[in-house]
């Protein structure tokens, strides 16, 4: 029984008198003040009847009046219902026109100050009758959603390049969809329905990896397995491919999207402190967690004004990413093949216990680890107050122009003995609307965008990191981004979060329970047992301990 529960009972028992008293006070206050108000301000009281206007009646019989009133009322209600239902049905055939937003960003050299100009133009909704075959002179338009941030406006440039140089009859427009939370699934489902109704306004979706299962299972993205063979798939980051691979209800294996922007977690560290001053060299396959924690404890004593580890364990999706790394590096799984729940099993308990020890037993984390957010942790690192830092790839870019520029490097996430180091994979991929009218053209566009040369050009132009593994061994890329080989090592060891269509709910359950365990509200076993039971109830499966 956690402290929180005890406090609740204590609070209730101790303060039940206060609670009851407040309820009584509330009612008493209202009653007495009402009485007092009536008594004292009677002179101000407005006599209801006297204040009303005289009634002027027309002489009609009561039955007539009731009849007319009833008919009018029924008519109004029926009209209202019909109007509402009709409006809804009619309205669902029309789809909000896609808004075009071209976002341009200019990154000034040293500081990370960004100015953004947004131009919003309305797209012209295409004609509802589709032309099945495209002969080059006919102009078509493809609309693709994009991540809302476009560094150095590289994507806009590339889209224009496609229209002008590669295929002049295709106009590419970039739209802006919801990126997270909110009603992402509902938004894209409506686009898919519009596609099925032959008037889509969005052809290509740009989606986070966590949507892989949901979109594949509900057939909200086109099956690309005939266009995207396994040999080609192998050239992309394996974990991203895995999150978009799915076995659908007919038992057929399908791939729903092509990986586009890549992001992966790693252990950043201060090279100058760890390697040069202390002489500790990170091993080629990463430390074990025990070794890592003991190093941190040592460094904590030697550098008392620095935090050994800046890692964000606040209640958010980041927590699940952290946990995924601990779990996978212990050989653990969330679910088995039939979606029975394994989260209460030993590997997971050990993983969460290690996280708990990290925060409470060894006390090596920064103080805001449970209540702050990722940027607080990142600020500790890039302003020189932390030695180790678990974060995504963007830290390199942010560190340019900060006090730690040139002093940081990235290594593998630690692992449990006997298992491999694993890094949680994020990133975004292109999927095609199944109702898209120009599927071949859309595929050509995606293929062009995700080709090696175009991705390389984008990266050299200062855009995000992209999903082809070989890019990170390319000499030009390595020259511009010296840390690329470290990324390569991490990409080889990617792991993904649970691939289930209802991942949003699973994640929310897990965040709540795990954060409760890390905040000392429950024991680790209790939290994972509760979580396992919740998940099993939700999914309709059982809790299994192997």
């Amino acid at each position: 029984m956690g402290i929180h529960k005890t406090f609740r009972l204590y609070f209730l028992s101790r303060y039940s008198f206060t609670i009851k008293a407040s309820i009584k006070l509330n009612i008493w206050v209202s009653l007495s003040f009402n009485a007092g108000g009536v008594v004292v301000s009677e002179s101000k009281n407005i006599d209801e009847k006297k204040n009303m206007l005289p009634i002027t009646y027309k002489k009609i019989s009561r039955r007539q009046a009731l009849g007319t009133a009833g008919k009018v009322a029924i008519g109004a209600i029926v009209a209202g219902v019909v109007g509402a239902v009709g409006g809804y049905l009619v309205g669902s055939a029309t789809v909000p026109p896609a808004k075009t937003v071209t976002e341009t960003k200019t990154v000034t050299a040293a500081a990370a100050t960004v100015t953004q100009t947004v131009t919003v133009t309305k797209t012209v909704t295409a004609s509802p009758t589709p032309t099945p075959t495209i002969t080059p002179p006919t102009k078509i338009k493809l609309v693709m959603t994009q991540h809302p941030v476009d560094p150095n406006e590289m994507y806009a440039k590339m889209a224009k390049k496609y229209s002008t140089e590669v295929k002049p009859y295709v106009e590419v427009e970039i739209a802006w969809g919801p990126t997270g939370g909110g009603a992402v699934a509902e938004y894209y489902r409506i686009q898919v329905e519009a596609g099925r109704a032959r008037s889509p306004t969005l052809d290509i979706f740009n989606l986070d990896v966590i949507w892989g299962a949901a979109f594949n299972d509900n057939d909200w993205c086109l099956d690309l397995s005939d266009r995207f063979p396994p040999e080609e798939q192998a050239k992309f980051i394996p974990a991203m491919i895995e999150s978009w691979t799915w076995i659908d209800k007919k038992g057929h294996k399908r791939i729903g999207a092509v990986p586009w922007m890549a992001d992966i977690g790693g252990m950043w560290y201060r090279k100058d402190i760890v390697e040069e001053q202390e002489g500790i060299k990170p091993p080629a396959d990463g430390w074990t967690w025990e070794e890592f924690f003991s190093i941190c404890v040592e460094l904590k004593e030697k550098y008392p004004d620095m935090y050994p580890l800046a890692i964000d364990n606040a209640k958010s999706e980041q927590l699940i990413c952290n946990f995924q790394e601990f779990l996978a590096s212990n050989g653990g799984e969330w679910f088995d093949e039939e979606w029975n729940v394994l989260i209460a099993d030993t590997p997971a308990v050990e993983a969460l216990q290690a996280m708990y020890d990290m925060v409470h037993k060894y006390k090596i984390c920064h103080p805001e680890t449970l209540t702050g957010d990722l940027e607080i942790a990142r600020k500790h690192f890039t302003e020189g107050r932390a030695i180790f830092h678990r974060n995504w790839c963007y830290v390199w870019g942010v560190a340019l122009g900060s006090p730690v520029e040139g002093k940081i490097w990235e290594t593998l996430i630690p692992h449990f003995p006997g298992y491999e180091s694993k890094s949680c994979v994020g990133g975004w991929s292109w999927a095609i609307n199944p109702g898209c009218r120009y599927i071949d053209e859309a595929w050509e566009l995606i293929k062009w965008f995700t080709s090696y040369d175009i991705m390389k050009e984008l990266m050299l132009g200062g855009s995000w990191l992209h999903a082809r593994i070989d890019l990170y061994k390319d000499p030009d890329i390595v020259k511009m981004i010296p840390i690329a080989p470290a990324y390569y090592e991490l990409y080889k060891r990617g792991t993904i979060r649970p691939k289930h269509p209802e991942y949003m709910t699973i994640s929310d359950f897990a965040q709540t329970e795990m954060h409760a365990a890390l905040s000392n509200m429950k024991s680790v076993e209790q939290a994972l047992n509760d979580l396992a039971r919740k998940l099993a109830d939700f999914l309709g499966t059982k809790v299994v301990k192997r």
Partner: protein
Amino acid sequence: MRISLYNILLLIAVVLIVIFYFGPVFWTILISLKPEEEVYSIGLPSKFMFDRYYKVLLSDRFIPTFLNSFKITFAATPFIVLLASPAAYAIARFREFKGRTGVFILFLVLMLLPHVAIAGYIYSMLTGLGLYDTIPGVVLTYTGLFTPFAIWTLSSYFRGVPKEIEEAALVDGASRLSILTRVILPISLPGIAVTTILCFILIWSEFLVAFTITLTYNARPVTIGTLLFVGLYELQWSEVATAAIIATIPVLAIAFLASKYIIRGLTTAVIRG
């Protein structure tokens, strides 16, 4: 000034009140003037970045939301008053309106519904109608959400109009509708002004429903606009604080200028019921 216990207590109370209520506001202003790295530190800013206000005002991320807020609020508020006035009059003055109490309670209850409970279905409804992420959709939603509040406020004002004037008009052969437009509305203009101001403030600071039913700069109001200051990777909280201060200024201005009327308005609303 006598040094009495009363004065000392008053002074302590005033100081505490100022610290408590204005403290976080003051801190927001402070954050908006700090360099981004110092947002979380507790000292005074090392340099005062007043130019950030210019930057935010001129940034293309903020102005569209500001304009949207103006459009939405100035469109919704007249609608609300227009729809609420007849209903409030009917509740206030029609003695023969047998269902008066029931309707009043109905509107009172509707006013108290938590927005979060119905925002979800409103999203589906607007999407089905094609009004998602459009200003008309937002205006329609806000009209529906705040009309009961306006009815409640207005009905109290209408009951304050001396009934002799209305009786005289009735005797002269005016219809109820023309009584409303030619007699009641002009007399209770202060009350209508107060209702308008209150609705303005409520709509301007509304966040949750706006977040659910809008997506892009087409219709996003300024409360959400404050959160759109994403740097390359993270939210720039100093710019968010600046935007928040700027977004609050219209509300503050109206509240300050009209505070006399607002207080009088809320008073009358209660006195009569």
